[in-house]
């Protein structure tokens, strides 16, 4: 099967990006270097083409109650124009995907899902609509999505007139705006831990915005730096910390499961349940923990596995997330990671490796 292309594919090739297959798309992995791109987002401004991600629209009188029913987090109680991060679970509590739902109006919700799960999510969500007065549309192919991330994101988006002072977009909110004669959706969300925006537009407008952002000093950033940035701030990634076999509780996402809600899919399974795993944050001074490496206790017994690992650009050390069996979690909170022939003692972190500057 040939790979899908985003609307900006040609721009990536012209910039000399290293391309790689991701979720069926030919995506830019990096342009200049992962280091430069990560640092640009932390200190200034980066732009990511994340048009591969999926966009579903729920419209109609029951739009909000429907989304509240299918996700575990509280959507009904969120304010107008708020964004809500949530797992999407089965009746047995296992995670189909994690997503962000945007409450655009009383009767309109945008759900942004992982590219690799678009079909799975669509099949699931569209099978659950009975009894709700809604319309559900998969517009993943109609939208481009630019993630504009970094401390200068607000300033530059204002300079190129994507947002204005009167738009008052606070952190984790979204608005439908008319810009350059076109309806776009601008959300103050992202996957880097920095202040930033995600702009959902037509393909045509995306190329205009991409060029304007680069002209205004934004560094084009690929999926490789995106992964480093999200791991530094300990955001989970589906297929790594989350998968079809785990519940949100296993991935330390209890805060996204609002069992006080009257009803939602998975409530019976998740209410009062304990996790079988614990998510740990481990770093190494020397060496880089990688996905699949074993986590050990001080007696060198295997107690878990690394789910994501990389070299932190910000800290210049190996950082990782891993899942440890709950019943083997060591009381002394001391861990080792097996790298090739060596079991190396790791540093256990209770907070994210890097504190992003988001508002």
């Amino acid at each position, binding site marked *: 099967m040939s790979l899908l292309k985003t609307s900006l594919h040609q721009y990536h090739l012209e910039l000399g990006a*290293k391309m790689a297959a991701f979720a069926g798309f030919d995506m830019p992995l990096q342009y200049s*270097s992962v280091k430069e791109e990560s640092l640009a987002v932390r200190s200034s401004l980066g732009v990511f083409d994340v048009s591969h991600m999926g966009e579903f629209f729920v419209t109609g009188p029951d739009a909000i109650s429907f989304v509240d029913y299918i996700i575990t987090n509280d959507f009904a109680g969120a304010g107008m124009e708020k964004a809500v991060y949530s797992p999407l679970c089965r009746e047995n509590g296992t995670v189909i995907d994690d997503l962000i739902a945007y409450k655009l109006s009383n009767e309109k919700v945008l759900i942004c899902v992982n590219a690799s799960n678009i079909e799975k999510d669509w099949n699931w969500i569209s099978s659950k609509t009975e009894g709700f007065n809604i319309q559900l549309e998969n517009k993943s192919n109609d939208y481009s999505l630019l993630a504009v991330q970094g401390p200068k994101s607000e300033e530059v988006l204002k300079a190129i007139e994507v947002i204005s002072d009167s738009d008052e977009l606070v952190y984790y909110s979204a608005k439908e705006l008319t810009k350059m004669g076109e309806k776009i959706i601008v959300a103050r969300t992202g996957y880097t831990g920095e202040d930033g925006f995600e702009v959902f537009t037509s393909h045509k407008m995306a190329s205009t915005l991409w060029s304007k952002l680069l002209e205004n000093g934004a560094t084009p950033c690929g999926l*490789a730096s995106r*992964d480093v940035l999200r791991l530094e701030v300990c955001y989970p990634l589906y297929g790594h910390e989350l998968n079809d076999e785990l519940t949100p509780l296993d991935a330390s996402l209890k805060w996204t499961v609002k069992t006080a809600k009257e009803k939602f899919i998975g409530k019976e399974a998740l209410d009062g349940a304990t996790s079988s795993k614990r998510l740990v944050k481990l770093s190494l001074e020397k060496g*880089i923990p990688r996905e699949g490496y074993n986590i050990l206790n001080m007696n060198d017994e295997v107690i878990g596995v690394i789910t994501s690992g990389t*070299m932190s*650009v910000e800290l210049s050390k190996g950082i990782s997330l891993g899942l440890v069996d709950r019943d083997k979690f060591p009381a002394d909170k001391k861990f080792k990671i097996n790298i*090739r022939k060596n079991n190396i003692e790791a540093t256990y972190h209770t907070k994210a490796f890097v504190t992003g500057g988001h508002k």
Partner: protein
Amino acid sequence: MSHNIPKELKYTTDHEWAQKEGDIISVGITDFAQSSLGDIVFVELPEVGDDLSKEDSFGVVESIKSVSDLYSPLTGEIVEVNSELVDSPESCNESPYGSWMIKIKVSSEDEYNALMTPEAYQEHCESL
């Protein structure tokens, strides 16, 4: 994309270079290798005195995204290890041919003579 392939060195299909000085052969990774890997952030090297057979893994080089084994182009004994690379792995990006990783003492020149010529290695890179 064109890469720097010095004429005075020999090469392997795994993108290592070898330089001969008497019966001592220095080994490193090529410009093509460092460019494909991207930012090199970690290098793990063996101990002096280790014996290597041709194609043995002698260490690891890691970029932010990937882990790659290093394979010995030759049979022999490791007589020197460039431990400076462990502290400054970025040298492999900045100066791949200045960043030798190990020096191997060989008992015969045959394996060295059989390595790829710069011309053959160039063709190999172009075919990838």
